[in-house]
């Protein structure tokens, strides 16, 4: 049996010390009628060699980016991951440690998370960051809960309809049953008109939640929208693309109250959608209302600087049903990846990745839109690294043709529920371009689609 230490002889010795005759008798407190009287019906055990062969076979049934050029977007991106990120994240000292409750035996994790928080603050221009939440979608609901606590307005929030539809669905699942109205401002032409937002905001609204760049890749009027939120005493919650902050104004720069993001782009592989990384930062004044773990700097008994889990009184294991969130685990290891990634990139690197993605995306959009039958939708709006095209033969035709040529585009907008009636959303296909894509690849795609 793998992973067990004690030999039958030792087990016998231990049973004798305990004073029972068999291992079964240790289970005496489980009433016999509740015991499973058969073996579990699961597949037979595999040795490591067999398991490797089994999993490799399954992996080969999938078609990964090594055989297709990945231009897929929609919240998960194929940015380059330096090898140094893996080198750190695969150290047993990080990945086999627990939550750093014992500060004296966990300064490695604690300082790394403190640096993570610091990096996220610098990236976003916000005052404080927690040490991560699950992922981008649940960050939105945690932010709305926090906004409701901070504003003491519990019955109404406003979301832009240009937000990732799955994020919106998460918020709806989290809030719908709580008698909280989730108002969605329709996005008809690639971004939301601030005037439409102003119309639905009121002084009972806890927050205005926007994604910028939005799900369609285009920029919202984030600054103006933040002003509108504040006009009604609501918090401005901005979901950003962390890579975009290499170029774009930071949420802290234009007054966002809570800045959240999916942090996968920061050094975490796509791995079919998770685990990813929820980034959550906000104004200092809200710090005691934040969800998630916070690492703080302090001193030890000898006055030596050190780090601890701070403000734990907010958390569920102390505060229970009054906690700021039910969250217990966070995404420690993924936060470590992001810390290493941001450290490696630094001031210049993040700017270059953002700029390369942006330049290449614009080149791709321009080239693709010159193909007969292909249109760049929402082309009146500036975008960052992702854009929407449509094809006169329909999205399925477009995707199939691209796949045959070795390219994965998408997702197609029709797979989502956008809650608006625009035709555009039925025909559009997202195309995401990261710094990894080359002009040669883009040109090859264009050729193939022209043919």
């Amino acid at each position: 049996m793998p992973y067990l230490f004690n030999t039958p002889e030792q087990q016998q010795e231990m049973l004798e010390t305990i004073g029972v005759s068999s291992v079964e008798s240790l289970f005496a407190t489980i009433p016999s009628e509740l015991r499973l009287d058969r073996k579990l019906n699961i597949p037979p055990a595999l040795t490591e060699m067999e398991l490797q062969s089994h999993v490799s076979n399954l992996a080969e049934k999938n078609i990964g980016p090594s055989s297709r050029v990945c231009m897929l977007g929609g919240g998960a991106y194929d940015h380059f991951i330096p090898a140094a990120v893996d080198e750190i994240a695969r150290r047993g000292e990080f990945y086999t440690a627990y939550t750093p409750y014992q500060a004296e035996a966990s300064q490695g994790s604690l300082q790394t998370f403190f640096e993570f928080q610091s990096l996220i603050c610098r990236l976003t221009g916000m005052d404080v960051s927690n040490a991560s939440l699950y992922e981008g979608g649940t960050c939105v609901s945690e932010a709305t809960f926090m906004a409701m606590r901070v504003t003491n307005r519990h019955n109404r929030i406003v979301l832009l309809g240009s937000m990732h539809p799955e994020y919106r669905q998460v918020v709806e699942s989290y809030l719908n049953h709580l008698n909280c109205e989730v108002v969605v401002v329709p996005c008809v032409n690639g971004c939301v008109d601030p005037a439409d937002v102003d119309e639905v905001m009121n002084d009972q609204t806890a927050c205005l939640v926007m994604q910028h760049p939005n799900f369609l890749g285009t920029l919202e009027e984030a600054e103006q929208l933040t002003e509108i939120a504040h006009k009604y005493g609501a918090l401005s919650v901005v979901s950003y693309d962390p890579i975009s902050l290499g170029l774009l104004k930071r949420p802290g720069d234009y007054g966002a109250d809570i800045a959240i993001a999916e942090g996968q782009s920061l050094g975490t592989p796509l791995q079919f959608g998770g685990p990813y990384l929820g980034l959550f930062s906000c104004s200092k004044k809200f710090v005691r209302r934040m969800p998630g773990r916070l690492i703080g700097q302090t001193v030890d008994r000898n006055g030596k600087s050190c780090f601890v889990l701070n403000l734990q009184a907010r958390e569920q294991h102390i505060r229970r049903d009054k906690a700021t969130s039910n969250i217990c685990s966070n995404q420690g290891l993924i936060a470590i990846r992001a810390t290493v990634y941001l450290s490696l990139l630094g001031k210049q690197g993040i700017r270059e990745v953002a700029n390369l993605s942006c330049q290449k995306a614009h080149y791709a959009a321009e080239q693709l839109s010159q193909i007969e039958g292909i249109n760049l939708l929402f082309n009146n709006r500036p975008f960052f690294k992702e854009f929407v095209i449509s094809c006169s033969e329909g999205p399925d035709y477009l995707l199939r043709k691209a796949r045959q040529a070795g390219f994965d585009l998408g997702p197609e907008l029709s797979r989502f529920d956008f809650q608006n009636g625009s035709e555009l959303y039925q025909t559009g296909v997202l195309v995401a371009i990261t710094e990894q894509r080359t002009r040669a690849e883009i040109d090859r795609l264009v050729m193939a689609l022209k043919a």
Partner: protein
Amino acid sequence: LATELLFALSQPGRRGALFPDSDVPKKPLNELIPQSALAIQPTDLPEVTEPDVIRHFVNLSTLNMCVDTHFYPLGSCTMKYNPKRHERLAGLPGIVDLHPYQNPSDLQGMLEMLYGMQEMLAEISGLPAVSLQPAAGAQGEFTALLTAKAYFEDRRENRTKVLFPNSAHGTNPASAALAGFDCVQLESSEEGLIDLEDLKTHLDDQTAVFMVTNPNTLGLFEKDIKQIAQMVHDAGGLVYIDGANMNAILGYTRPGDFGGDMMHFNVHKTFTGPHGAGGPGAGPIAVRDFLADYLPGPVIKQTEIDSEENQFVLETPSKSIGRIRTFYGNIGILVRGYCYLRTLGAEGLKAVSENAVLNANYLKIILKDVLPVPNGELCMHEFVASASKMKSENGITAMDIAKRLLDFGFHAPTVYFPLVVPEAIMVEPTETESKETLDAFAETIRQIVKEAPEFLHDAPHSTDISRPDEVIAARNPILQCCET
């Protein structure tokens, strides 16, 4: 030097990662993005080299204790060995690099694996409908509670209360509150079990869910669980099993068989997804048939189609509560859990629980004269001892013992949880530790309790830092290194 902040290493102009020049005709940025949306100055990240980064974080890592280096008997956390094959296999091309929006026909191997995971979890729990989506146990609880809520709403029942014993994990009430329920905490019995009388007084037609960890956080199996479940069901409520302690009962008994209607698994505990210094976890849930239609979407289904290309599909249940996260779950962790289950098989899983329980009972017995356990003759996979006698006699606290253990190369047990035991010391050795290690641990505790209390109050003495001042930390929180 290791503990110098990364930011202190920054020098203007240093680079840790280079990128090629753009190979497309470069345009002025403000032709692409309106000037008003552009940052005024570059983001102020530190500027360091790759060697800086490696040396900094490698050195930092060595300040951690972890399962790979130390015995880590942290009760309630199931710090078992993390098999290295999992890290290799979860990193395979075709697994690690799949985009969630690829065409499903390009994902059949992945979907087959996840479908297999659903099936295995259903069998282990005795609850046939599984959602792999929740990112962690706490989200699993919340998701299951929403599922229950949708079920009751669908039945036009207005049930508002969630009950749980006072020994429950903090996540139970927190999740219930988040799901909009009223929380009702029950007292435990003398034995450390659910007090049936107290439960009875709280059960009524407002009761939605009774949440119970079984084995409970004292490491005791709720022997009356069947009767308890019957009482809850009679009141029209549902029973939720917090699966944090599944490591004790794999293949021995199943939540579905002892009355549970819903449960979550902690893949990172029971099925050895690594803890990752705090996460990511994965908290898939399993529920009874009649709750299946309310699960969050999507779930993986096997179709009748006799084609390799589209045998497995992603589907949203008909009355789904909706999405509770983006995409499909913490796949990377689920892959590790899948590998673990496929490695162990039925006999292996049962042996896991047998050895976990054997190790816990053995350690409990050899420690009982110095660290008595108030509740239970036998324990399951963990036990909760109390240092309260010691504290009253010579002032040695649970915290003192925990901290002093660090000096001897043992991670500390969980202390002061569950709340129902004074000066609680909660020890979970797991099945992946040897008798030799347990003997050495017990011997060390024997030594420690003979040491001078004042010396222990100042422990640890050999770690990189001594006890940190948490009061200062909380009073004036310093949460980043460069506040403006």
